[in-house]
């Protein structure tokens, strides 16, 4: 709008109907074939890829969980030796946290946020492509190492000195630390894209108080990522330095400090939990509207609760260290802050309950998963309040009670909403509905199997069973409950199996979905299912929080964008007033090449510090290629 129109411009006002979509398709399309797949910067393709990959890691991590359950089903079982078991529980934790839970939330956001804010692509689309490749490389590194019996065995938290040079020989701990670097880079990239997309690319008229709650949740989450990741980056880099070049950051014999690791790790590690939970809470707030048939109650409260959780998340890391012997008064502060997080969580729960109470619930699978989320997440939240109490924690810390607690929070609090979200947004992603029958089957199997598997672990923990043990002796009274948990995990596994069957079957043969099958109110449902490469033929203009409910006939649109180059509208931060037309980058192979160069450098640096020097040369070349002006219309901007 600030750009002077050149004679050669083709604007969307000049052409209409099918001509317009043809022109936009030509400009925004991803070419077919392998070249298109490697060069695409379409957030929908990358988002789908991201989601798919994250679910592959979920399956792999789930297989490890099943192996652990088989091993623990009897005392002194020898199915897995200690070395293999320790790799497996480390892999399970690291995989689920770094390769599944965080990326899958980002993945859903990469797909949805640009659609929900009504723009044509995510901000920094090439960075987005790069972030996916880096994530894939990090995941591959971890799993290939595991397949070669080089999987990390120091726990997903990798406490020093156990992970230090003296007690973790070989390269296992380095693989863990470097996998962290990969996932950090990819998470930070997505976080930055997300912040800019939400701040600057919202549809005209989408003022701050008209942003869907899920988008708010991703915004807060992205800030959490930006602020928490540097701590783990410092930690894992210091660890690699200790191991590779003999620094002594964590060596008490040389003036280093063992607890420094724990502070750095948990300063990241606790916000990490909210990096996983907040998007899920946002999904619940967004999904509950079409299924309660009314707007979510307490929009302001819900958004403020997200922000409050995000702030408090940085003030309670010490509750992971309550038995490390820190000063008691300091611990009391962290008890208070850890308990306080129950308030924003409570606000959200109560607002959702009020929404359901005043609404007219439609009992489809997504709502079932939301109900399952209430049942289990509230238990996880309450056990969270329990472990926030220092004296309580001294008995249950590092026991199966905590294993039960965080599975209730992470599976109940994040995976259940995520499964609901997959059922809910599946028609938008694929153009087909998921089967309701299979959906209900998977829900009942998963919720029954989950609770039967994990609830007994509370009792096991109180009965003295510590975490991370590869076996236990027959004279301890833990056998019966472990067998029960192991058998129940079959039900849980069956539930996930049904879910995956449902996904695969529906992707091929599900009922064809309309543009807005749930009669939802947010912008992603204003375009076709699945959306075209340019998302919206005309950028929608928003004048309420529920644009599709309040303007049922036709959404107002903004016009004047060029169709012969990739262009989107940049709007102001608070009021989302149009400020400029901005070019959006074209497809490019350079993000992939940069990711390959970066991966080589990072993996090589596990073995020699010189890799950082020589390995950065190809990265520099790739970056030059990435940013080199190609003379495309987009370069004019």
């Amino acid at each position, binding site marked *: 709008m600030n750009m002077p129109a050149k004679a050669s411009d083709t604007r969307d006002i000049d052409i209409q109907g099918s001509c317009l979509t043809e022109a936009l398709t030509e400009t925004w399309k991803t070419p077919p074939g392998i070249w298109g797949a490697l060069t695409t910067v379409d957030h929908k393709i990358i988002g789908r890829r991201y989601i798919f990959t994250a679910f592959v890691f979920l399956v792999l991590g789930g297989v490890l969980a099943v192996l652990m359950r088989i091993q623990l089903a009897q005392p002194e079982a020898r199915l897995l030796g200690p070395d293999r078991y320790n790799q497996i529980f480390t892999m399970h934790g690291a995989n689920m946290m770094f390769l599944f839970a965080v990326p899958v939330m980002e993945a859903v956001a990469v797909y949805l946020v640009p659609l929900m804010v009504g723009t044509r692509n995510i901000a920094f689309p090439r960075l987005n492509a790069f972030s996916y490749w880096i994530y894939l490389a990090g995941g591959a590194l971890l799993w290939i190492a595991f397949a070669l019996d080089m999987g990390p065995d120091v726990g997903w938290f990798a406490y020093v*000195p156990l992970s230090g040079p003296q007690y973790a020989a070989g390269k296992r701990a380095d693989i863990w630390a470097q996998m962290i670097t990969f996932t950090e880079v990819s998470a930070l990239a997505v976080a930055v894209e997300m912040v800019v997309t939400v701040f600057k690319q919202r549809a005209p008229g989408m003022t701050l108080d008209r942003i869907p709650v899920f988008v708010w949740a991703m915004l807060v989450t992205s800030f959490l990522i930006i602020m928490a990741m540097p701590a783990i980056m410092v930690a894992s880099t210091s660890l690699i330095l200790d191991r590779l070049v003999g620094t002594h950051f964590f060596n*008490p014999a040389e003036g280093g400090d063992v607890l420094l690791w724990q502070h750095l790790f948990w300063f990241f590690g606790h916000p990490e939990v909210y990096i996983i939970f907040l998007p899920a809470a946002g999904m619940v707030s967004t999904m509950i509207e079409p299924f309660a*048939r009314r707007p979510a*109650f307490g929009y302001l409260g819900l958004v403020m609760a997200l922000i409050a959780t995000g702030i408090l998340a940085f003030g309670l890391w010490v509750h992971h260290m309550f038995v490390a012997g820190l000063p008691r008064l300091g611990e009391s502060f962290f008890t208070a802050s850890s308990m306080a997080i129950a308030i924003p969580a409570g606000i959200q729960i*109560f607002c959702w309950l009020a929404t359901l109470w005043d609404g007219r619930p439609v009992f489809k699978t997504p709502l079932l998963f939301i109900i399952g989320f209430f049942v289990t997440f*509230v238990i996880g939240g*309450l056990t969270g309040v329990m472990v926030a109490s220092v004296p309580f924690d001294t008995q249950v810390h590092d026991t199966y009670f905590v294993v039960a607690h965080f599975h209730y929070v992470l599976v109940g609090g994040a995976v259940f909403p995520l499964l609901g979200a997959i059922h809910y947004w599946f028609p938008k992603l694929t153009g087909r509905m998921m089967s309701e029958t299979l959906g209900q089957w998977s829900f009942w199997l998963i919720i029954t199997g989950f609770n039967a598997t994990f609830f007994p672990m509370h009792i096991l923990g109180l009965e003295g069973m*510590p975490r*991370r043990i590869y076996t236990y*002796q027959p004279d301890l009274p833990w056998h019966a409950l472990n067998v029960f948990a192991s058998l129940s995990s079959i039900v849980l596994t069956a539930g996930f199996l049904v879910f995956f069957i449902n996904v695969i079957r529906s992707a091929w043969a599900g009922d064809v979905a309309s543009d807005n099958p749930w009669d939802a109110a947010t912008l992603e449902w204003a375009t076709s299912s699945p959306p075209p490469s340019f998302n919206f033929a005309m950028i929608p203009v928003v004048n309420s929080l529920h644009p599709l409910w309040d303007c049922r006939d036709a959404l107002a649109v903004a016009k004047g964008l060029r169709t012969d180059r990739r262009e989107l509208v940049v709007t102001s931060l608070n009021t989302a007033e149009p400020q400029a037309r901005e070019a959006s980058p074209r497809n490019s192979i350079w993000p992939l090449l940069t990711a390959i160069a970066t991966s080589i450098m990072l993996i090589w640096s596990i073995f020699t510090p010189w890799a950082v020097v020589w390995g950065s040369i190809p990265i520099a070349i790739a970056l030059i290629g990435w940013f080199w002006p190609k003379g495309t219309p987009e370069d004019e901007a």
Partner: protein
Amino acid sequence: MIRALSKICLSAMLAVPLAACGSNWQSALDVHGTSAISLKHLILLIVAVCSVVWMLVMVALIWALWHRREGLSTPPQPGRERRMTIAVIGAVIVTAVIIGTFTIMSFFATRSLSVAGQDELTIRVRGLQWWWGIEYLGPDPSRRFETANEIHIPVGRSVHLKLEGLDVIHSFWVPSLAGKQDLIPGRSNELTIRAEQPGVYRGQCAEYCGMQHAHMALLVIAESQDDFDKWANAERNAAAQPVEEEAAAGMQTFLTKPCAACHTIRGTIAAGTTGPDLTHVGSRRTIAAGLFETTRGSLAAWIADPQTIKPGNNMPMVPLAPEELRDVSAYLASLK
């Protein structure tokens, strides 16, 4: 097939049952220590309150989903919105009150737990991969002594534990007596335990410490002051000279083979400090950090092949002829 075979081998190995003691000897719910008792009260109270909260939320959820609705869907109405606002604010206030109460309770519970008794019995507990070094301290250096994996304490007396991690982080946890506390290299932590009743309480390392984290147990034996003094005096003595021929031969083997490089047997030239002090190993209830009951058979099995029994532990397999193995196990079993 392999699994079945290994299971048979294993059950043969574990034929020596450890289950002499009550099965709940490592439980935060079956408590016999002063602080564990008050922790149990706190745990039960908090769990009870939280259970009620959960049930209330579930009732609210069920009500919200299935209460009777009239007419067709209507847009949100100001009157109902106001009532809902009041209900939500009320629920948030209740939440705040509950967690505020929990916070204050925790604060006072922590304070009361950390008040140490005025008693001179101090024990240094060192955590190592994967066993516990136990050293009884006292004002008189000549009355100090060392043992491993087994702590004896007098009933009704506060015992002060100085916790030190020597290699990696471990965590001392005897749930029937007290909450846990980490043993961290480069730092010194403390814990006070007091048994209210005589008994044998099992503890286990609670911080992941590597390959054999699962097999790093210890026993706390609470007994009367008399029994404790008797035991302590016996422990202070050097090892008894073997009387039987077999044991005497075993001692020779022990001292000439690499065993003595890692283990101490007071009264002999064996003065290694890498492994547990074996001066009175025959009197301890278990070997290999709680893995087996101490018998001549289990000692022989352990020495013959420590890496199969407890893979990854720091005791190497020392090749011994069958008769040497018999002798050494007889000698160690005789070290009462």
